[in-house]
């Protein structure tokens, strides 16, 4: 068993108590699932507890995902009114075209400013559309991103898109819109153990059902310069070790007797090794200086302690299982 809201809150409290600067964000589809519990009151009670817990964690931004509309937009607007920092750059009031939530949120860490931008996909499926009602309409997310980034130009040092569009649309976003450093995605809930680079953006997701917390550690010291993945060098080291094992096996096969096919294959592997070694040297140079990041999916396993207050909220609501 992995996950649990009370464990997640306790993990954040632990990081906070150590004094490490951190921000908590969510990319959407936080509150509801497509096949919710039969009891609508329980579904809403769970959503209320989630909103309260994320506020307790001091969440910096929560993107509105399509499934978050399953209880209607009024629920979300009420939560925004109560101080939950919900954002969406492309969810609009159908009659006026005005955005229903703030498009972005700027968070400051000293003189350093991060802009979080919220996006959801370009259409709603029939179940969500029915729940959301005709009050809402969706703007083209790619155009909305361009417009929002234009608004943010000069106001922030760093842009993170919280996306509920899915990996394929996030890849398109990274290709079409410049100036996004990270796309923290969701919707398809993938387990992304290492960041994918598209253009100047890095793409990540943190699986689903709150089983993991994605931990993106940024170390920045060169304004305007690219950001490198610190973990790349260690992954290349592992690849090189595997390749060396294959080369050894080929050499042993050759010693047993000449074989043109083995010889060809060995030559290809040795050429591959030279390329890999060069890439590794480059990555090692970038690993220890300049702008860099590391990414880790922290599993919320049962050995982790739980936040007592959140546990009490759940018990008081009479909820014993999802």
């Amino acid at each position: 068993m992995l996950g649990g809201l009370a464990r997640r809150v306790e993990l954040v409290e632990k990081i906070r108590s150590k004094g490490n600067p951190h921000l908590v964000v969510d990319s959407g589809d936080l509150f509801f699932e497509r096949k919710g519990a039969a009891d609508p009151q329980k579904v809403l009670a769970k959503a209320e507890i989630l909103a309260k817990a994320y506020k307790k964690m001091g969440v910096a931004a929560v993107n509105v995902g399509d499934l978050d509309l399953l209880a209607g937009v009024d629920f979300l607007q009420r939560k925004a009114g109560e101080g939950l920092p919900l954002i969406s750059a492309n969810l609009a009031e159908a009659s006026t075209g005005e955005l229903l939530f703030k498009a972005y949120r700027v968070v400051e860490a000293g003189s350093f400013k991060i802009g979080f931008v919220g996006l959801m996909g370009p259409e709603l499926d029939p179940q969500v559309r029915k729940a959301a009602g005709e009050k809402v309409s969706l703007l083209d997310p790619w155009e909305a991103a361009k417009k929002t980034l234009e608004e943010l130009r000069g106001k922030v040092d760093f842009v993170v898109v919280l996306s509920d569009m899915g990996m394929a649309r996030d890849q398109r976003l990274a290709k079409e819109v410049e100036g996004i450093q990270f796309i923290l995605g969701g919707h398809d809930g993938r387990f992304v153990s290492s960041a994918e680079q598209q253009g100047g953006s890095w793409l990540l997701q943190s699986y689903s059902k709150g089983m993991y917390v994605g931990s993106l550690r940024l170390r920045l010291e060169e304004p305007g310069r690219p950001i490198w993945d610190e973990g790349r060098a260690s992954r290349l080291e592992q690849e090189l070790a595997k390749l060396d094992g294959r080369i050894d096996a080929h050499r042993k096969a050759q010693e047993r007797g000449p074989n043109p096919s083995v010889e060809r294959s060995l030559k290809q592997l040795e050429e591959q090794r030279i390329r890999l070694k060069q890439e590794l040297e480059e990555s090692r140079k970038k690993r220890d200086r300049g702008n860099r990041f590391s990414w880790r999916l922290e599993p919320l396993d049962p050995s982790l302690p739980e936040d007592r207050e959140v546990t009490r909220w759940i018990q008081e609501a009479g909820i014993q299982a999802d």
Partner: protein
Amino acid sequence: MKRFSGLGERISWFSQPFLLLVAVGLGFLSPLWGDSAWAGQPIEITILHTNNVTGHLFGCPT
């Protein structure tokens, strides 16, 4: 006076493409970082991220 003026014109004429290249280069590298008050003091910050929690309060089987 005229000599200085002519030199100024030459510098201006030569520098325009150079300045344009610098501006384009900076814009390409840092479309948003240009007007920053942050001057590169080392900063370390961790972003903790979740997605697709979908109302789950309890753990799930792996």
